[in-house]
């Protein structure tokens, strides 16, 4: 409705339609991720949930956070952090998977009497 309003010279204005579209998609995906927990997919459940979360996060970052229209440098900055986090988690998992079972016979120490 306000499409021909004058916007700023140095930034992109996202249309209401795009924002509402993304909002609808996010709502739908939230309900989907909730509903899918009632379906037993075994080990796949966590990956389905994470996949939906990644899609939702991508939508938020690209549209709500303007990454789609901004300088690509900001996207590079964000991705570099995400890659570092993934390396961090991946190596921590590999590492703890190697020794955790043998570190303490039986189990981790319980502090609850």
């Amino acid at each position, binding site marked *: 409705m*306000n499409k021909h*309003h*004058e*916007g*700023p*010279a*140095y*930034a992109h*204005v*996202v249309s*209401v339609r795009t*924002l*509402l579209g993304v*909002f609808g998609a*996010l*709502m739908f995906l*939230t*309900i989907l*991720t*909730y509903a899918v*927990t009632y379906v*037993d*997919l075994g080990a796949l*459940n966590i990956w389905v*949930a*994470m996949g939906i*979360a990644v899609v*939702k*996060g991508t939508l*938020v*970052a690209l549209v*709500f*956070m303007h990454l789609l229209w*901004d*300088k690509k*440098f*900001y996207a590079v*900055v*964000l991705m570099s*952090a*995400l890659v*570092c*986090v993934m390396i*961090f*988690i991946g190596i*921590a*998992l590999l590492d703890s*998977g190697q020794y*955790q*079972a043998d570190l*303490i*016979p*039986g*189990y*981790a*120490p*319980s*502090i*609850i*009497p």
Partner: protein
Amino acid sequence: MSTPHEGRDEHADPHLQHHFESMAQQYDSGKFGMWLFLVTEVLLFGGLFCAYAVYRANHPEIFAYAHQFLDKTLGGLNTLVLIVSSLTMAMAVRCAQLGQQRRLKQMLAATLLCACVFLAVKGVEYQHKWKHGLLWGTRYVAQGETAAPADAAGVVTTPEPAAAVPVPADGGTTLPHAATGPAGLAGDHPQDGHGAAAHGGHGSAGPAPRNVQLFFGIYFVMTGLHGIHVLAGMIAIGWLLRRASAGEFGPQYFAPVDFVGLYWHLVDLIWIFLFPLLYLIH
């Protein structure tokens, strides 16, 4: 101290700081700074997600058991509330860019309201956990013996574990843990390895695994830090609302709205991952 913008474009915006060439340059610098800050936030939460991943990979039965004490309807409701707030925040940025003063204030107020609802729901959840001893470390109260009557309060329906027997749920010795030396070091729990007890149990909890307090420690640190970020966001949005009431924002100067918006969307984004990881464990 005479003219701050001496020798510059006579159309220079009063919001243009003296060390920037133009509003565009000022905006880009601010935005870059904001993204660097958001990256440190990603790394901060990344450490917590790492702790989550390591503990879940090593003790899946704890997570499968303990997540039943979270209310996924309330968690889902909070997810929807945050998504609505992200929409209103994105709309607020748009309104600021277009100079729609009245709608800008409305959108900021709506975002603030959503944040309040989020924290209120979180408060209800925390209160429920506090009451039932679903807490971190030594504050955790073993469920089953104590939780059953408390459910009559009907605050939230949590499926209680079936085993209400006063026998140690891990099937271990009935000796007090003090008698077996440093707890867990006795090595008399051969069945306690990975995949024991409630591992993979959906909805129907087996006997409670040990060290359930680990889950609640992770839960409270992650949601608590996120809640602090929501609070900080509310302060920032309140500040925006005050400035918007003074009519400071418009097509030439909307950077603060945009940057707080970026922060708010990141807080939403973190919750998008926290929700399935904590509440929707299958």
